[in-house]
C-alpha cells in the first residue's frame, strides 16, 4: 500500500519530465531544424511586413478581392478565438443569416444559386479555402472591379486551385489569401 503510494508520486514526477518536457522540447527542436517555415505557421511577408499566415483565413470584403467563407471566430477571423457558430440546422438565426448572405451574393450574380460554402461559416472560423465553385461564382465581380477580363481572372483562379491531395484525399480547394495576393501583384 505505502509502497504503491510512493511509486505513484515518483512515477508521476518522472514520466512528467519525460513526456511533458523532454518529448515536446525534442519535437520542437527537430521541427524547427527540418521544417522551420511550417513549424512557425507559414507566415507571409509583403514589402517587409508580415501580412498573414498562408493557412489562416483573414477578412476580405472589397469588391476587388475574393471573399473567404463567413467566420464565427471571435468578431470574425480572430485567430486567437477559433470556432464555429454551433447553430443547429433548424435554428432560425442560421436561416436568417444564410438568407441575408444569399441575398447580397445574388445581387452580383442574379438568379444564380450560391455555392453552399460561401454562405456557411467554417468550423474553425479560419478556413483558408473556398471551393472552386465559390471562386467561379465571384469571378465576374472581381473582373469588373479590377477592369480585367473574366478569362484572366479565371486563369489566375485555375493557377491557385489545388486538386485533391495525391489526387485522392480531401476535396479540391482554392486558397483565398494566395489568390488575392497574386491578384494584387497582377493588377493594382
Amino acid at each position, binding site marked *: 500500500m505505502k509502497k504503491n503510494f510512493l511509486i505513484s508520486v515518483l512515477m508521476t514526477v518522472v514520466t512528467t519530465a519525460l*513526456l511533458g518536457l523532454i518529448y515536446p522540447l525534442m519535437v520542437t527542436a527537430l521541427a524547427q531544424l527540418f521544417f522551420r517555415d511550417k*513549424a512557425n505557421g507559414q507566415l507571409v511577408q509583403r514589402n517587409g511586413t508580415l501580412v498573414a499566415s498562408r493557412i489562416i483565413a483573414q477578412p476580405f470584403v472589397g469588391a476587388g478581392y475574393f471573399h473567404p467563407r463567413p467566420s464565427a471566430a471571435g468578431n470574425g477571423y480572430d485567430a486567437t478565438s477559433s470556432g464555429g457558430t454551433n447553430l*443547429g440546422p433548424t435554428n432560425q438565426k442560421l436561416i436568417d443569416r444564410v438568407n441575408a448572405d444569399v441575398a447580397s451574393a445574388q445581387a452580383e450574380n442574379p438568379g444564380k444559386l450560391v455555392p453552399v460554402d460561401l454562405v456557411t461559416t467554417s468550423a474553425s472560423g479560419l478556413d483558408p479555402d473556398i471551393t472552386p465553385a465559390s471562386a467561379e461564382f465571384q469571378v465576374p465581380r472581381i473582373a469588373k472591379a479590377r477592369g480585367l477580363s473574366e478569362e484572366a481572372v479565371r486563369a489566375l483562379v485555375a493557377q491557385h486551385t489545388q486538386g485533391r491531395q495525391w489526387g485522392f484525399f480531401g476535396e479540391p480547394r482554392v486558397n483565398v489569401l494566395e489568390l488575392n495576393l497574386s491578384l494584387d501583384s497582377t493588377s493594382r
Partner: protein
Amino acid sequence: MTVNGWLQIIVYLAVILAVTKPMGVFMARVFNRERTFLDPVLRPIERLLYRLTLVDEEHEMRWTEYGFAMLLFSCVSMLMLYLIERTQQILPWNPQKFAAVAPDLAFNTAASFTTNTNWQNYSGEATMSYLTQMVGLAYHNFASAAVGIVLAIAFIRGIARREKETIGNFWVDLTRTTLWVLLPACIVYALILVSQGVVQNLRPYDTVKLVEPQQVQKVADGKPVVGPDGKPVMDTVTDQVIAQGPVASQEAIKMLGTNGGGFFNANSAHPFENPTPLSNYLQMISIFVIPAGLTYTLGRMTGSQRHGWAVWAAMAILFAAGVTTAYWAEARGNPLLKGVDQHASLMQSGGNMEGKEVRFGIADSTLFATITTDASCGAINGWHDSYTPLGGMVPLANIMLSETVFGGVGAGMYGILIYVVLSVFIAGLMVGRTPEYLGKKIEAYDVKMAMLVTLVFPLVILVLAGISSVKGFGTSSISNAGPHGLTQILYAFTSMAGNNGSAFGGLNGNTPWYNIAGGATMLIGRFFMILPMLAIAGNLAKKKYVPPSLGTFPVTTPLFSVLLVGVIVIVGALTFFPALSLGPILEHLLMQAGKTF
C-alpha cells in the same frame, strides 16, 4: 455523395484492416515481455525508470492491487494537473500572460484529461499557457491512454490465465505501454504532422497587418455597442493576432491515445492542428490503429486468433452502419436553406457545410465524426452541433453504444469484452447450458459485474440529462431551441459519461453546474466501469480451464459477430431510444416539415 467520397471511406477501412495484425502482434510481444526491435534503445530507459521510481518489475499483482495502483496514479496525476492550472500565471512558458484557471473549470479539466475524456469547457488558445498544455494536458494524453491500454491487457490476461491469482504489474505495464507503444510512434507522427503544416514552437502569438483592414462592430463588456441613432458603432481592425504553440507534439498523442482534447478551441478543424487532407486522413487512422490492433492482441494472448477477428468484424459492421448514415445525411444538405447550391459536383462537395471545412468536405468530415465517436476520441474536424439531425445522431448513438466500435485505446477493448460476456451469457441461456467463454465458465458473479458496468453508464447519463433539461441551471446553457436543445444536453452527458469529449459545442458548459456535475460524470464513467471490469478479470484468472464441448457456443464464427452486434444494438436501443426520439428524430421530422426554432 461522390465516388471519391465512398472510396476514401472504403480505403480507410482497408488500411485499418491492414494495420491490425502488425500492431496486434507488436503489442502482444510488448506485454508478454518478449523481445522487440526497439529493445536495444528502450530496455535501458525502462530499467532506469524502474530504478528511479522504485518499481520491482518481477512483482505480480492481484486485481485489487492492480486497481488500487491505477486509482492512486490517476489521483496523484490529476491533482498535479489541477495545481499546474491553478498556478500557471507564475510558471514559465506563458507568453500570453494567461491568468490562473478558475477552480471549477480547473477541476472539470483535470477530471476530463485524467479520464481520457478531454471534454473542454475552455478555449485552449485563450486560457492555457504553453506549459499547461505540454506538462499538464499533453502529459495526461499519454498517461490516460496508457492506463486504458494496460487495463485492457489486464482483462485479456484474466481470460488467458488459468488458476492464477494475479493479472500483471500495473507499473510495468504502464511503463512498457508508454515507452514501446506510445512515445516512439508519437515522435515520428508529430514530425509528419509538422511537415503538413501543424505548428510546433514556443513563440509568442504573431501579429500580422491585414491585407484589407476590417470593419467590425465595437464590443464593450461582451456586448455589441449601438450608437444613439440605433446603428452599430464600428471599429477598424488592422491587425490579426495568430495563436501559436507546441501543437504537433500534443496533436500526435491526442489522436493516437484517443484523447481528443484540442490545443485550439476549433480542435482538428483548426488549420494549425489539421492543415491538409493528408494530415486529416492520418489523424483518422491514428485513432483506430491501437484499438484495432488490440483485437488481434486479444486473439493472440488468449490463443484464439479467430475470436479476435470475430470481434473485429462486429466492430467493422457497426462502423460501416454509422459512417454510411452520417455521410448520407450530411450530403443531402439542409432543406431549409433557399437559394443555395448544395449539390455535389466537380467544383464542390456540396451538402451541409455549416461548421465544416472546405479541405475536408462532407466525406472526410462525416468519416471523422464517426471514427471519433466510435472510439472515445472526441476530437472533431467539424461541429457536430451544426450537423443535420440524423447526421448528428450518428456520433451521439455511437457514444451511447459505449464506444465499443474499436473504441478508445483499451477502453474500447474492455468495453466490448463486457458485451462479449453478456453475449455468451445470453447464448448460454438460449441453449440451456452454463455459458463458457474461451474455456472459462461465466457464472453469476461475472454477469452481475458486467451488468453493473452496463447499467451505471445509462443511469448517469439519463438522470443528469433529465435534471439538466428541467432545471434553469441546465436549460440556460442551451443555444439552440426546440428538440435540438434536448439533444445538446443529452450529448453533453453521454459524451462525458462515455469519456468521449466531443460536444454539441453550442451548449455553454463553463458554468458551475456543468463543470461540477460534468466532472463527476467523467470520473464515474471512467472508474465505475473499470473496477467491476477488473473484478471480472481477477475472477476469470482464478478459474479452471474447461475444454470446449459440443454444447459450447463458439465465439469464433460470423454467427457470434452477428450476435455480438445484436446485443450491443439492443442494449443501446432499449436504453436510449426514447431520449433519441425526443431529440434528433423529432427534430428531423420537424425539419422535413419546414419548422424552425
